[in-house]
């Protein structure tokens, strides 16, 4: 194994938060490596579109700006690499097209973003059912429609963006099924209005959807999706039980976002449960430093705040690293960034509130519904284990295999914790979160071992006979 490459700073994740962090640190003269699983920077929100030149949309332009700035910076760019191990020190091991790579740095900024929360319902495992964020990837990064007749469902502004995107590409949106009532949007409006360009963008999406006469069904949720090898129809219902059946060939659905906080958990940073911020997040200082010295978490992975605050949080963390290393930074830069962060709070908090998990949505899951997709574990099995006295989330994992599959509990974790909390009448804090374990993502054994000679394996001394 080659010895690890040393940097001043390693940044994990090249979305708005990680990208800005890397640029800021490099500008302060630090040696920085930026690692991302995707083949280009931008994260999910500013994902590189499949076609050049840059599209006219604002998020496309911002993504292009970030990519161009990184390309012309001194940041070492390591795209297309899957990080599987992060250990004390900090050492980061990743796999990519050129094999395995290790790098070390005294400072680590984690900007690993979020993944989608989808509250389970019968048929959510059916092909053709996918996340809202998945639909944005298809539309933006691949220039593809999720289907010809698409039901868009869930909660939050992403529904409007996806529905508008489908219409713009010539697809048909059967309906938008919104868990929120209209009043929910109206209540959020003053907060959203604090960021006029973003409000205008959202209003544009909404306008396009309404102009197409697509029904926007408020206060309803998807009760069931049916099909044989692909979703063919969905039943939507209100809390009071009135139902509609919609015919479709795709259902895109998202009930908010969950922070991807696996790295701080793996490094045993102090975590807390914050419903507004999407779930378990690290305790942070004003500089986004965790309880583990020199480990920083920024962007949605440190709590759902959206792209607006993500970039700023990345820059603030990078400035803190630069200061720790004795680099001169612009005297008023920190104050300016803090001001921008504070001004964005009202908007970000309003969006985060829309995207946070609701206990009532989880309580409604039927007993036969599959909760853990990887291991096909139903709600009734989780409830039975809870009723038998198992109240720790890792214990539930042991007895049901829930969360033991290849997604490593990312898709079901928030729901299972909520179910155990409901069943045991314990708080989410008491129920806890999955223990952090490597690899951070499944990695092919063949790539992990590479080519080697048996004689070179550093086999430890045998145990006594």
């Amino acid at each position, binding site marked *: 194994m080659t010895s690890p490459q040393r940097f001043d700073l390693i940044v994990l994740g090249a979305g708005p938060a990680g990208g800005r962090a890397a640029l800021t640190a490099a500008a302060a003269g630090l040696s920085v490596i930026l690692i991302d699983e995707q083949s280009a920077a931008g994260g999910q929100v500013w994902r590189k579109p499949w076609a050049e030149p840059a599209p006219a949309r604002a998020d496309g332009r911002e993504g292009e700006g970030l990519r161009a700035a990184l390309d012309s910076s001194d940041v070492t760019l390591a795209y297309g690499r899957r990080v599987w191990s992060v250990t004390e020190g900090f050492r980061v091991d990743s796999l990519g097209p050129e094999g395995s790579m290790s790098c070390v740095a005294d400072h680590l900024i984690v900007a690993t973003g979020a993944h989608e929360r989808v509250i389970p319902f019968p048929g959510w495992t059916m092909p053709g059912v996918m996340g809202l964020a998945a639909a944005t990837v298809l539309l933006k990064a691949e220039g593809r429609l999720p289907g010809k007749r698409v039901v868009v469902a869930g909660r939050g502004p992403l529904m409007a963006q996806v529905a508008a995107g489908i219409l713009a590409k010539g697809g048909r949106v059967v309906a938008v099924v919104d868990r929120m009532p209209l009043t929910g949007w109206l209540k959020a409006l003053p907060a959203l209005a604090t960021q006029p360009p973003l409000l205008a963008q959202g209003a544009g999406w909404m306008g396009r959807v309404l102009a197409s006469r697509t029904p926007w069904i408020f206060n309803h949720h998807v009760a069931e999706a049916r099909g044989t090898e692909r979703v063919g129809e969905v039943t939507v219902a209100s809390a009071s039980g009135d139902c509609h059946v919609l015919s479709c060939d795709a259902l895109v659905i998202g009930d908010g976002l969950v922070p991807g906080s696996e790295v701080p958990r793996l490094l045993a940073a102090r975590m807390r449960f914050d419903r507004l911020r999407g779930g378990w997040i690290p305790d942070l200082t004003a500089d986004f430093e965790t309880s583990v010295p020199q480990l920083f978490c920024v962007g949605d992975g440190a709590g759902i705040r959206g792209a607006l605050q993500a970039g700023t949080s990345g820059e603030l963390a990078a400035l803190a690293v630069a200061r720790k290393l004795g680099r001169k930074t612009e005297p008023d830069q920190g104050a300016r960034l803090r001001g921008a962060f504070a001004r964005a709070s009202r908007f970000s908090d309003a969006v985060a509130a829309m995207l946070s998990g609701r206990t009532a949505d989880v309580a409604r899951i039927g007993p036969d519904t599959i909760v853990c997709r990887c291991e096909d574990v139903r709600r009734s099995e989780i409830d039975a284990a809870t009723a038998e006295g198992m109240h720790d989330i890792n214990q539930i994992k042991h007895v049901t295999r829930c969360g033991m599959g290849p997604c490593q509990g990312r898709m079901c974790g928030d729901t299972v914790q909520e179910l155990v909390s409901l069943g045991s009448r314990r708080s989410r804090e008491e129920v806890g979160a999955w*223990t952090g374990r490597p690899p951070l993502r499944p990695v092919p054994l063949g790539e992990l071992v590479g080519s080697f000679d048996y004689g070179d394996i550093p086999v430890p001394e045998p145990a006594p006979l």
Partner: protein
Amino acid sequence: MSARYDLCVVGGGIHGCTVALFAARGGMKVVLVERGSLCREASGVNAGTLTMQMTRVALIPYALQAHAMWASAATWLGHDVGVVVCDGLSLAFTEAEAALLSYRAGRRREAGAPIDLIDAKAARLVEPGLGPGVLLAGHCKVDGFANAYLTGLAYRRALIDAGVTILEETAATDVQRSQGCFEVDTMGVPVKAARLVIAGGVWIEGMLGWLGVTLPIKVLVNQLAVTERQRPVMRTVIGIASGLLSLKQYPHGTTVIGGGWQARGDRERGGYELLPDRLVGNVRLACHAIPALKEARLARAWAGLEAETRDALPAVGPVPGVPDAYVCGSVHSGYTSGPYLARLLAERILGREPAMPLFPIDRLLDPIERAA
């Protein structure tokens, strides 16, 4: 002061649960105190291997009995822990390993383990998934594995059936002994019992300290890994001569890779960090033995704590100088042999003569302490 219980067991791993179970079935009123939940430390996170070929020679007779216990778990435990009985192979890829294997297999055979040395061709008949380069293999038909993570559930149900009071999420912090009764402090609430068993895994060192006994326990931090599901690629339990590999594929298709490579950890924080180079080393051994594992992906890796005494033999028997107090733990390959050793101790506590000798800790204590 009267005792509420005949027996208090501190520590809810395999050792503590088994002692509690058989003591209760023997008519005792038993309470089990566990700071977390049952079998969630070493007993739940180990590799689940039930093998003679990694067992210490002195423990082979016990391991054979224990293997039979595991194989019939549905009968005496009453609940399935996914036990699969199959052939086991210990492989040698180099001349040095072949020499080590010949010697170690011979010693284990003398102790009663039915291990035969076979060549590569014969080994391949036993395990068609083997990679090239095998020089020699130890073949044992008494081998197999369990689903370690199901252990806690099985014992929980059995203990409840047997009438054991289970106090989970209850940390014992000290023990007083007065008027022929132990009083175990559990977060302010005393648990009173006439007899006491210390079965706290790597934490028995501190627990014996409550009784004024100093027994140094080394903490091993064993690294483990599991693949995601894949097609069947092996049908035996595989090890290597040095013992630094254990490998088996479960019926649902995942393969657990172990062997005792050391991660970072301690009593306070548990196994908190896996070292990437050691993980890769362990996985390389696995892929060298069974090349088709390279098709799969690594799903998860973790570390569990194993307790080891100075002579790496068990601490199972009475606590010297403290009447009615016992210790049960530090059994090398404890998952394999634990149930039998713990059952022997339960026999002793019930006033019967155990079928095989225990491993009293007197041998491990300072002469001064022994005199006192």
